């Protein structure tokens, strides 16, 4: 009987000890989302560039400096002389890309860090960063095609529809 009483007491003590050790205050867990800059590709780009804006922005994007009035007038002449403006724009871009003064990474620099190249290039021409899918797609395309050069990427972007808008 006495033994039973001891056992009961010890059992009670053990139960209390277990309870005490098992009871911990529930931690407050707060689930958060990491801040991500989420934009639609055409966010805030509802305005088509005028001829002057297109030439000026393209020049600045490629040469890192503002175009002067004489240069702008020179580039405006072929626009007035031919009706297919997209064709003239294409030719102007290709002409600019062939200039010694253009500021553009080398092929080896591009391939050394394709992610960074794409981030920089999207920011330069589209004023935004690529989303995850865009980054993945373009990175794969560059890595799988040795023919793709920085000039090719620049040309493709500068003759795309998004580049015509701001």
């Amino acid at each position, binding site marked *: 009987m006495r033994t039973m009483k001891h056992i009961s007491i010890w059992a009670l003590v053990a139960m209390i000890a277990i309870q005490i050790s098992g009871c911990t205050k529930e931690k407050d867990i707060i689930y958060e989302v990491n801040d991500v800059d989420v934009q*639609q*590709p*055409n966010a805030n*780009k*509802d305005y*088509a560039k005028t001829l002057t804006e297109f030439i000026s922005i393209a020049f600045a994007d490629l040469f890192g400096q503002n175009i002067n009035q004489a240069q702008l*007038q*020179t*580039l405006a*002449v*072929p626009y*007035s*002389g*031919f*009706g*297919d*403006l*997209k*064709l*003239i*724009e*294409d*030719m*102007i871009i*290709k*002409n600019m*890309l*062939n200039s010694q003064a253009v500021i553009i990474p080398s092929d080896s620099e591009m391939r050394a860090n394709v992610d960074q190249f794409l981030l920089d290039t999207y920011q330069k021409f589209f004023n935004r960063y690529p989303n995850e899918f*865009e980054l993945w*797609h*373009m990175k794969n*395309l560059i890595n799988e*095609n040795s*023919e*793709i*050069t920085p*000039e*090719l*990427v620049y*040309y*493709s*972007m500068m*003759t*795309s*529809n*998004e580049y*015509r*808008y701001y």
Partner: protein
Amino acid sequence: MKRRGFIKKAAATSAAAFVAPYILPSGRLFAATGTRIVDHVVFCLFAGGVRNLEAVHKADGNLMPNTLLGSESISSDISGGVNLIGQAGSQRLQEVGTLFKEFRFAQGPTGHFSGHSSVMTGVYNLQDINIRQRPNTPTIFELYRKHTDPSASALNAWWVSNALGPYPALNFSSHPEYGALYGANYIQPASLISNESYAALGNPKTFSNEQKDLVNQMRGFFDNHFGNQVVEGSAGVTNSASDKELVEQFILETFNNAASGLYNNPWGIGGLSGDQFNVFAAEKIIEEFQPELMVVNMQDVDVCHNNFTAYANNLVKADYALGHLWQTIQSTPGMADNTVLIAVPEHGRNAQPNTVIDPYGRYALDHTNDDMSREIFCLVAGPAGKVVQNQVIDQVMGESIDVVPTIAKILGFDDQVGGMLPGQHLEAAFV
């Protein structure tokens, strides 16, 4: 030079081309076209305000020996300021076609833009506004491209203008059912074939064919992920991807030819005037692309506002250019004996001069809506058997708005557009 890769219509005789209506794979019903008279039309707006007195009536001698028969001497008082060039070909244009001596620019202000837009739309432009405003009725280019072949390329329709100002606005209209999708390839040679354009375009980065495919892939990816799509026609007339390459090659070749001096004396008559260079550029386009429809203008005679003798001299140059244009047409495979050339001044000039006297003592002439400024001529030249040869029509017949329905008839789409146009086909000129 690289030629177009697609099949061209052969230099043909009068084969009928009537096609029964059928449903295209696109679901579009393609209505039958009429019978073509020939496959090509070159229309020359001649040449900046030409008075019938100096032209077909030869008041100062035959200033147009490439166009008109006759050897009348140049008036002695101005002969010192008029340099006859001679003839570009063995036949005069009058011999290979029909000359309407009393054509009329019947309505609207007798101004250059009004004249141009009236004759290029087939509807009189009654406004005297010289701004870069597109006509609100479709131009001949749009009518041709929309109503002939469902896939008519812009390479088949060219507008070659010797001046800027409002003329670039005439390659397509603001009509909601037409517009840039059906417009012409516009070129102003004096601007495009220039030092400035060479500096801007002449040394492009070149890409391999594989790289071009990759560009198309990347650009397609970018465009598919951009929410705003560029409105078709917002960048003017757009050539297809394959046509664009041909045009780009053509432009680069002209730069190379100009830089190498080939354009310094291409006709063997010394340096070309502005009008002549414009026609020369039109000839290069004809040789390269054999377009089915081309409109080319000349304007240098407009110097007549302050110098009559220079006007007469420029009329000689414009006439030579017209003759040389015909020779080029006749020596271009596909266009030889398969082209109708139409030449019409956009308007005439006043009967009474203004007060400006030139060094030869002649008074200058304006064009301000008097009766004589509406008197013009029309020449329709073409192959025997299709165009009545060596015919002169002395009575008042035809007007500016008749040119567009005539072109529609020649190219076989008149049944599509006849109800839209107030003018008439110049059937007196055709067999």
